[in-house]
């Protein structure tokens, strides 16, 4: 159960009440303006109370909110999106959607990790967890973007790679490793958007780029909190603790220099104003691309190298006996 749904319930009820009153106000002769103003004030306070100070665990759930805009919501907001299917090798993976579209008048290729909207859809999309064929479809699209000199825009939203038999048999290590390699050397601009959940290698597989945008309440982590807890303490139940320690929020990632830009969300999360959030995200993507398309491919790849080359945190000890 998503903890945010519980949290936001009183707020949604209050907002429904306000909406009812507003309707009454318009249709009846009695004036409810004062009541409405008071309730709206209360709603603002409540919202602040609920969302003003979310814990990391609550933020994880906000990033996973069932009404949060998904990759295809962003992609469909582009003009003329055409989906391209398949890895040409084994299967078309519905957990990764890809194709081409226009961002304004700029022709781009897109790749997004797609979760489902309901249970049936989630089974089809495998909860946004790609199989090797998804990463291989992504590689194919990356190479098309390079061949035809179109920028690539990606949308990350996955708990991570799928821990299943077929995925291992068909080499998901190789598939991710190759996707990373293709992206690292791709001679066309790449803008990455972390829109929901960015979990492990499954996220990074479409996460190497020249400008990394993250939504304010998205998360990005070395592993989902559940997986991290399972790895660290053999106890997925301690996911909340892991969430706290992993530093997976946008402000922390910005401080670490992992991401380049944060798209602010309304208090309460992106799903409270999807249209604005989608427009803002695509706007940020577009501004980044307008800058990046001016660079020569060599410069682009060199800068991308330096960008990731810098990431790390290490010190040089005076002597190896310093270990003692």
């Amino acid at each position, binding site marked *: 159960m998503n903890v945010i749904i519980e949290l936001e319930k009183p707020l949604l009820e209050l907002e429904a009440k306000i909406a009812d009153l507003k309707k009454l106000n318009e249709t009846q002769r009695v004036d409810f303006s004062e009541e409405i103003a008071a309730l709206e004030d209360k709603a603002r306070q409540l919202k602040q109370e609920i969302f003003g100070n979310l814990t990391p665990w609550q933020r994880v759930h906000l990033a996973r909110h069932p009404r949060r805009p998904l990759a295809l919501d962003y992609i469909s907001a582009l003009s003329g999106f055409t989906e391209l299917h398949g890895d040409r090798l084994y299967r078309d993976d519905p957990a990764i959607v890809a194709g081409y579209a226009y961002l304004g008048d700029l022709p781009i290729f897109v790749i997004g990790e797609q979760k489902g909207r309901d249970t049936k859809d989630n089974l089809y999309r495998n909860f946004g967890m790609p199989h090797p064929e998804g990463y291989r479809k992504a590689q194919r699209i990356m190479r098309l973007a390079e061949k035809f000199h179109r920028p690539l825009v990606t949308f990350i939203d996955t708990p991570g*790679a*799928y*821990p*299943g*038999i077929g*995925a*291992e*048999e*068909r*080499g*998901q*290590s*190789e598939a*991710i*490793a*190759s996707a*990373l*390699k293709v992206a*690292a*050397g791709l001679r066309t601009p790449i803008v990455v958007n972390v829109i929901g959940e960015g979990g*492990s*290698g499954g996220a*990074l597989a479409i*996460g*190497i780029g020249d400008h990394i945008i993250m939504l304010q309440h998205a998360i990005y*982590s*070395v*592993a989902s909190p559940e*997986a991290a807890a*399972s*790895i*660290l*303490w*053999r106890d*997925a139940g301690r996911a909340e*603790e892991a969430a706290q*320690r*992993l*530093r*997976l929020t946008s402000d922390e*990632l910005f401080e*670490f220099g*992992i991401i380049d830009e944060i798209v602010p969300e309304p208090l309460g999360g992106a799903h409270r104003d999807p249209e604005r959030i989608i427009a803002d995200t695509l706007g940020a993507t577009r501004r980044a691309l307008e800058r990046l398309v001016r660079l020569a491919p060599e410069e682009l790849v060199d800068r*991308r*190298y330096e960008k*990731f*080359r810098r*990431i*790390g*945190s*290490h*010190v*040089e*000890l*005076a*002597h*190896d*006996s*310093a*270990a003692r």
Partner: protein
Amino acid sequence: MAPTPQWLRRRTVKPEPAGDVLWEICRSCGERLYKKDLAEKLWVCPRCGYHFRLHALDRIALLADGDFQELAALLATGDPLQWSDRMPYAEKIAGDRKKSGLLEAIVVGLCRIDGVRVGLGVMDFFFRGGTMGSVVGEKVTLLIEEAARQRLPVVLVTASGGARMEEGVIALMQLAKTTAAVERFSELGLPLITVLTDPTTGGVSASFGFQGDIIIAEAGAAIGFAGRRVIDQTIRQKLPEGFQSAEFLLEHGQVDMVVRRSELKGVLGKVLRFLAAQAVPA
């Protein structure tokens, strides 16, 4: 094994042996083995052929001809998340340093293998499960960059539980960093050979592990992205026989060959000489 080489004697920190000083139990057949014999047999069970996990320094001693010029030897983690759970991350690191005689989960440097000069990186599963954090990522990258400068092939011997959780997304980004280094190295036409040993999973298999031009798996090694436990918990169905073993991966087209430890140096030398031989005029 051969007498301790010079480079190894130069190291001031020595590992503190864990468990029984004299005896070792084979994980596969249960045989009780005399450690000194086992070391002579390259830590391969003489009864069942089980390949024990090898310490990085032992692996280097096994592969390098004579001297090994270590690079970035004194790099240590900056603990970017200031992580602490049952104890601070820094303390865990200190403990593993004592036990392993290493500052981190990889040793990198320059040496010759069967006569061919290479950049060699060897991971150590006994240090934090061979996980990759900032230091492993940085040392792999520095090694590849140095090899690129000197136009040497690179051999990376992996043994890893994946990315290091205690360094969070910064550990994840080491996949991107090392990949970028491999990609640039590869563009120069230089060869990367990876040797996947038991176990190689997660972030290391999903980055440089499977980016080798030639990928060698050590006999019996467990290799995969997701660990068995995670898969078990997720899908709750019987795993195929030999699932994620080196031999299973060979059948599934994932690795070029499976090699026994005793033959590894010879095979590496052969591959390296082939790739270093006088080429067709480019």
